[in-house]
């Protein structure tokens, strides 16, 4: 995908997708002049096939599908180094959030399912318990990702240190959380929110 010839025309450039990213992130991709400062400071650059500046470049060319097909967006650590240092105030961290959301909504063809899975479980935890329940998060993650032995030695140690709780109590006002989730879903269904 990365090296495929790129045909540019009004039809092949998905401007609608880019506009969505800009609306979600509140940041213009056109402002970027490709200085590369974001990629220079990104702690995760070496793990990505498209470094941050190239993500923006692909968006400038309306190539959202190329971005989502890669795993780069899932390797962003949200450290905001890029946003902080950008000379053009391109909020790349927010653009990454927007891209992840669009990929998430589309259940997109990402190669990087582990991070997606972890995020999904994290949010499920919130919906179910109101707060994080780290033991459950870790256990279910390992189960679902098929890495049964991952951090095998770490778990019991943390439990003994009191860092992982075996049991978890729900918030008394847990109903309100469900309400938030439902109303957000409702707004999206009605097209009132992105």
């Amino acid at each position: 995908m990365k090296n495929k010839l790129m045909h540019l025309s009004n039809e092949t450039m998905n401007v609608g997708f880019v506009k969505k990213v800009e609306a979600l992130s509140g940041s213009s991709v056109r402002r970027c002049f490709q200085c590369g400062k974001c990629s220079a400071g990104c702690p995760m650059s070496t793990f990505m096939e498209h470094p941050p500046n190239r993500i923006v470049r692909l968006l400038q060319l309306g190539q959202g599908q190329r971005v989502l097909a890669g795993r780069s967006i899932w390797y962003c650590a949200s450290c905001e180094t890029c946003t902080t240092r950008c000379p053009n105030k391109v909020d790349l961290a927010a653009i990454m959030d927007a891209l992840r959301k669009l990929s998430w909504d589309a259940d997109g063809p990402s190669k990087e399912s582990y991070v997606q899975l972890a995020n999904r479980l994290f949010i499920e935890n919130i919906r179910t318990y109101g707060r994080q329940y780290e033991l459950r998060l870790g256990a279910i993650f390992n189960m679902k990702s098929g890495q049964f032995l991952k951090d095998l030695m770490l778990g019991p140690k943390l439990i003994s240190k009191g860092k992982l709780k075996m049991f978890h109590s729900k918030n008394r006002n847990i109903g309100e959380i469900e309400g938030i989730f439902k109303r957000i879903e409702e707004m999206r269904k009605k097209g009132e929110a992105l």
Partner: protein
Amino acid sequence: MTPGKKKLSYSYYPGCSLHASGREYDISTRALFKALNVGLKEVPDWFCCGATPAHNVDELLSLSLCAKNLSLADQVEGDLAVACAACFSRLKTTQHHLKEDATKRKQVEYAIDGPASLNKPVKHILEILAREYGLAKLEESVKKPLMGLKVAAYYGCLLTRPPEVPELDDCEDPSIMEDILRALGAEPVKWSHRMECCGANFTLSRPGVVLKLSNAILESARLAGADCIMVACPLCHGNLDIRQKEIKEAFGAPDSTLFGSIFGSDLPIANTSEDRRDLPIFYITQLAALAMGVASQSLGFESVIIDPKPLLRDKQLL
């Protein structure tokens, strides 16, 4: 509020980590505030702030969760004190975004079924210690100065970024942690990696990333001659403390492990320090409370992986 005239008092949002993997941060925060005679009242029935995963894939959810928490906090008097850097960043970001974006604010208010509370000041405990309680008074209150303790103050990503949101300190060259350390009598070291990312929440999904990034941080602190690292974020603490032994195995000696040769060899890593000594990781509140004379037994030292007691004993701080 003028310190000394009226008792300082805060509402308190601990966040999920401080009730679990970062419990010693919570314990020591409460102990420190008690020692300084500053009030701290936990917000009842708070929810998870959504942390990084929520805004990563669903900004509206993230904003709504934080707005909900802010309105819960409104029920408790006093500015909102936050210890966790991630929670702090999310709560501040939410206030900032909702103030600027009327559409998002409307959506969020619909989602939480109530008005978004944007005016409650959200304060990180570093701010409270250095500015509201005040460095001078902090220095006066010290009972057991942390003499001879060389500390690498680690800010991580979220305390100061993005610059327009947290307003805590200069986003590229902060000094608030070092200022506090000096007030406590400790010696902050100059080092290179105090604002580099530790790998954050990849600890669950991609631990390899964490090992690489955190290793660079630990190595930088060792090379600068630090005895220990001070943090203000439970996630940073988790990565640097819980995974420190793993990191040592992975990067201990050049090419000594499969991981090191596969993962480490092509990546730039700081010069390897000679001893690769263990570096205890302290929360800011643990060190501050220790200096205030709080008994070490009530600071949660038993919960951490890298035992800090030998170091503290060595420096005659126990």
